[in-house]
């Protein structure tokens, strides 16, 4: 009797455990009955998701669908999409993808071919922003949010140094402003020191202004070049005027005037006529007399459809809807930044949000981060060495030499 | 000189204090005095202990004997009165400066030290020279018979051996006063008897003042030079074992000392022709001369009394009208005697009948009638109201 009971217990436990695991066919069951389908969106939390959420109710009503939105941080978004990509039946129908992940995702077939689904990009979209959306001639992603690096600054501190938004020309000017602020007892340049990705990204505009880049046209690493070293030395001088802070602290510092300048993104801060801070697009010159380069780095948030989505047709309609020029223009009021001329150069909009002209310029001449599948490992390695250099653990030469050899190994393998 | 004088010692536990107290003190059956200050655990304790005397504090659980001992040791604060050791008032002196040593009921040995280290510890603390330490430790070990255990740890020893180590740790100090708090209570009966004998032998080799606490009256009787019987925090009687046995000061002492317990009867004290006699049922016994003298000196009036006669002093008689009688409840064959439990005169009575006298019966079936009597020299008389001995 007791034996029977014991074996029954054991069996029940084993069975209950197997019941836990079977998730494959359970996720996207909803909606097969035609009535009230559900579309699942996985987006980047913040302004980026908020503006999409605003557009959803109209779509939901017209197509009689329900849209569920998941908002995640950048690294969670990346792993969220990646982890779901290995399932036969995907949980998501629309995903927001950072341009720098595109190579890795398309190489491994994570995204659906939008051209095959009948979508194409029109001419209103700023051409420079579309280069990463194509693999050969097929469209895989649509540029939704025009994120591009800008230089944030505190108006009062800049004025005190004798400059204003229009007169900041070169990196030397920026250094001068920050040094003056430091002499005044404030902090000069604030950068993000938490994490390799942030370290690298904040540095890229500076690197570009010196004519350098992390890879050459064959995607081989060029972190050991003369230009890179010059940029690095300048950067060390610049950050010596301030300190490292996390994103929220950085924004707050510049806003309150405790800090003076820092690399930022339009989505972080919306300047108005009486806000204490503002941003400009970098001109791309290192000194007053040197060559001007394209120095603004794209961080464009694109939208695409996972290859394993179970609702591709409906998702395509949603994507088309969200990318519609009129719909995109309507998001500007809530902080959206479309990659469209019709939105960014609209006179009505420019009246209220004059900085969009700056953003438009930046988007026209922006530079994408290297489109390589190994970008994640690339910036991890480079960022680690930059961290060492910044904190004095290695010299510039030593750190960059180590980075170069490691990256060569990475790109070769 | 290691005289210990306790003068009007008092111990009160204030009401709000909920410190960890010894288990015995929380006995709900206590009738300790409760005042505004708190619970009075010990009161009006007066005792002069002579140098090298062996004093035993004895009484039931919660009577305050351990508390008194701990006050002498310095482990409890003295609420009132004075304590003198060797002529010096030590109420506020720390335990380690009183030159006393204590043996605990649960031995309190240091578990991680060997026996030798345990015994050497107090000497090491006092910075005694190494060879002196070794000499004393080995001497104590030899006295207590634990030399072969010197390098063992306490957990490798039996209860009796541990107790000896505890005693050893106390005697190496060569203290003025040696305090022992129920040291034999944790041992089994046979071992207890053995250790009792050892303690008496030990006493002969260690010449110091002993204060010994126990709840066992046998230990008290066999070990003490003088016994202090306590109840509810109050001293009932102080005297030598013989004194308290022969002349118990009150009913409590009478019932506490002596095994088996004294038999008590409701009787009458009568006085005829100037002679005191005790009348119980049909028996009237004239008291001995010594008792006559005591009673007349105290001018005791005749009247109802409580008569106490020890079981060994009750005499079995044959069936006779003018004897006391009772019905048998239980009879215990003890080997050399039979303990007969009777129900007589509304009391439980025990009679001890030696088996070596051929005229004595050996079988006392349940319900059978037994006749007995007492004599005038072994009768104890107590006032039914005050419970005090009428002769003292």
């Amino acid at each position, binding site marked *: 009797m007791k034996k029977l009971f014991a*074996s029954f217990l054991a069996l029940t436990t084993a069975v209950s455990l197997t019941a836990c695991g079977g998730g494959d066919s359970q996720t996207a069951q909803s909606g097969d009955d035609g009535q009230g389908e559900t579309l699942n969106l996985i987006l980047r939390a913040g302004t980026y998701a908020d503006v999409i959420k605003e557009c959803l109710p109209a779509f939901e009503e017209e197509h009689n669908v329900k849209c569920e939105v998941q908002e995640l941080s950048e690294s969670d978004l990346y*792993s969220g999409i990646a982890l779901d990509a*290995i399932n036969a039946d995907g949980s998501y129908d629309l995903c927001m993808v950072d341009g720098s992940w595109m190579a890795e995702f398309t190489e491994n077939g994570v995204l659906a071919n939008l051209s095959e689904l009948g979508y194409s990009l029109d001419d209103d979209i700023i051409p420079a922003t579309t280069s990463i959306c194509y693999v050969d001639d097929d469209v895989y992603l649509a540029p939704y949010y025009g994120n591009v690096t800008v230089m944030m600054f505190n108006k009062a501190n800049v004025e005190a140094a004798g400059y204003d938004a229009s007169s900041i020309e070169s990196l030397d000017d920026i250094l001068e402003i920050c040094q003056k602020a430091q002499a005044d007892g404030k902090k000069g340049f604030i950068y993000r020191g938490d994490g390799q990705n942030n370290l690298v990204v904040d540095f890229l505009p500076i690197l570009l202004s010196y004519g350098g880049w992390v890879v050459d046209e064959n995607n081989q690493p060029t972190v050991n070049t003369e230009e890179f070293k010059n940029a690095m030395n300048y950067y060390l001088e610049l950050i010596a005027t301030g300190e490292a802070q996390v994103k929220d602290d950085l924004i707050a510092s510049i806003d309150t005037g405790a800090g003076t300048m820092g690399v930022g993104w339009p989505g972080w801060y919306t300047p108005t006529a009486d806000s204490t801070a503002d941003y400009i697009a970098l001109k791309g010159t290192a000194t007053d007399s040197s060559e001007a380069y394209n120095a603004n780095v794209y961080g464009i948030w694109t939208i695409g459809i996972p290859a394993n989505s179970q609702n591709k047709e409906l998702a395509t309609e949603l994507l088309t809807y969200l990318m519609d020029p009129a719909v995109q223009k309507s998001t500007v009021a809530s902080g959206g930044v479309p990659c469209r001329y019709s939105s960014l150069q609209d006179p009505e909009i420019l009246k209220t949000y004059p900085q969009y002209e700056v953003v438009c310029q930046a988007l026209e001449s922006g530079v994408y981060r290297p489109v390589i599948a190994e970008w994640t490992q690339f910036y991890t390695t480079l960022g680690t060495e930059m961290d060492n250099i910044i904190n004095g653990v290695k010299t510039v030469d030593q750190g960059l030499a180590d980075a170069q050899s490691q990256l060569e190994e990475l790109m070769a393998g | 000189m290691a005289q210990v004088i306790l003068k009007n010692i008092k111990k009160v536990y204030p009401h709000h204090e909920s*410190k960890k107290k010894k288990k015995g003190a929380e006995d709900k059956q206590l009738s300790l005095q409760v005042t505004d200050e708190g619970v009075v655990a010990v009161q009006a304790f007066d005792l002069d202990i002579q140098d090298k005397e062996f004093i035993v504090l004895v009484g039931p659980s919660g009577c305050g004997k351990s508390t008194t001992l701990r006050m002498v*040791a310095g482990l409890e604060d003295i609420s009132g009165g004075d304590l003198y050791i060797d002529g010096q008032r030590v109420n506020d002196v720390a335990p380690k400066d009183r030159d006393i040593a204590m043996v605990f009921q649960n031995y309190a040995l*240091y578990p991680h030290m060997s026996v030798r280290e345990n015994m050497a510890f107090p000497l090491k*603390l006092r910075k005694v020279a190494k060879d002196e330490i070794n000499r004393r430790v080995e001497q104590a070990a030899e006295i207590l018979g634990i030399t072969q255990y010197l390098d063992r740890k306490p957990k490798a020893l039996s209860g009796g051996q541990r107790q000896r180590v505890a005693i050893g740790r106390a005697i190496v100090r060569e203290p003025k006063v040696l305090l022992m708090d129920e040291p034999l209570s944790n041992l089994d009966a046979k071992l207890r008897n053995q250790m009792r004998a050892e303690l008496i032998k030990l006493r002969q080799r260690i010449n110091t003042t002993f204060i010994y606490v126990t709840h066992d009256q046998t230990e008290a009787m066999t070990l003490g030079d003088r016994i202090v019987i306590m109840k509810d925090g109050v001293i009932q009687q102080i005297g030598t074992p013989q004194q308290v046995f022969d002349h118990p000061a009150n009913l409590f002492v009478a019932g506490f000392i002596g095994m088996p317990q004294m038999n008590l009867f409701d009787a009458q004290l009568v006085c005829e022709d100037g002679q005191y006699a005790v009348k119980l049922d049909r028996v009237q016994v004239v008291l001995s001369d010594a008792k006559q003298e005591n009673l007349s000196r105290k001018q005791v009036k005749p009247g109802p009394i409580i008569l106490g006669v020890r079981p060994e002093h009750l005499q079995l008689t044959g069936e006779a009208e003018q004897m006391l009688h009772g019905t048998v409840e239980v009879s215990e064959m003890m080997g050399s005697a039979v303990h007969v439990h009777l129900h007589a005169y509304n009391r439980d009575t025990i009679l001890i009948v030696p088996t070596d006298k051929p005229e004595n019966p050996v079988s006392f079936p349940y319900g059978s009638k037994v006749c007995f009597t007492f004599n005038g020299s072994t009768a104890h008389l107590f006032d039914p109201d005050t419970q005090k001995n009428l002769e003292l």
Partner: protein
Amino acid sequence: MRRNKQLSNADVQTRRFGLSMISPTIVVLLIMTAYPLLFTLFYSFTDYNLLRNLRQPAEFIALKNYTDLLTDPYFQQSIWNTVKFTILAVIFEMLIGFAVALFVNSLRRGQKAMRTLLLLPYLLPTVTVALSWRMMLSPNYGIVNQVLQTLGLPVFNWFSDIKTAFGMLVLIDVWQSAPFVFLLLYAALQSVPQSQYEAARIDGASRIKILFYVTIPNIKNSLALCALLRTIDSFRLFDKVNLLTGGGPANSTSTITQYLYNYGISSLDFGFGSAGAIVMTILVLILSSVYIKRAIQ
């Protein structure tokens, strides 16, 4: 004969009953522990990358993951960081926890209230603790810097300064875990027989001597257990590091788990990550083997 048969039947029955009683546990252990462990071990010998696996199956690369791991100077640094952190954290936790336990044990009143209050940091979720401390130590609106400034003491950019980041992690972990040590040792202190203290007092021991000769020897086992538990736990430190410093600045706070997260998990190189997990398991086993051996004896 019959008797023997009956006895052996009873014997077999007892054994069978015992087996069937522990079979649920065995099932759970096999599925939840043994299987994932073997899986991880298997993957550690391949170059499995989650996304690349969609197009190209993972290849068997034998010990390459392990050699890469062990020769990577950053991994070696993370091992050193972890060891440094573990030693410092455990020492401080034990000292503080023990001191507090002694103090609370000696209180006459309010022991229960103190016990509850002191335990609170340990009950909080780690994420809450990390974020609260980050807020307090923020260079902008953090209360710590404000107080230091008013007192005229130097302020630091606590988590981004290579001089202070490591110390801060130790501080926060000690703050959260010392209550655990306190609780364990407090319980152990309660079981020390009062009479030993009294015997020591009579023997003439001062307070310090009583501490070393009576208190500590009696709670030796609890001290050892506590140290072991805290060592194992500190060794695996991840959430505080990840939330507060991400391993920086300059890899100075990167623990083994943080390193694995950066190089093995977020880059989706699960093969490499598995190798790291195996290495870490072996290290933790070595650490606790000393205690396990003694416990089995």
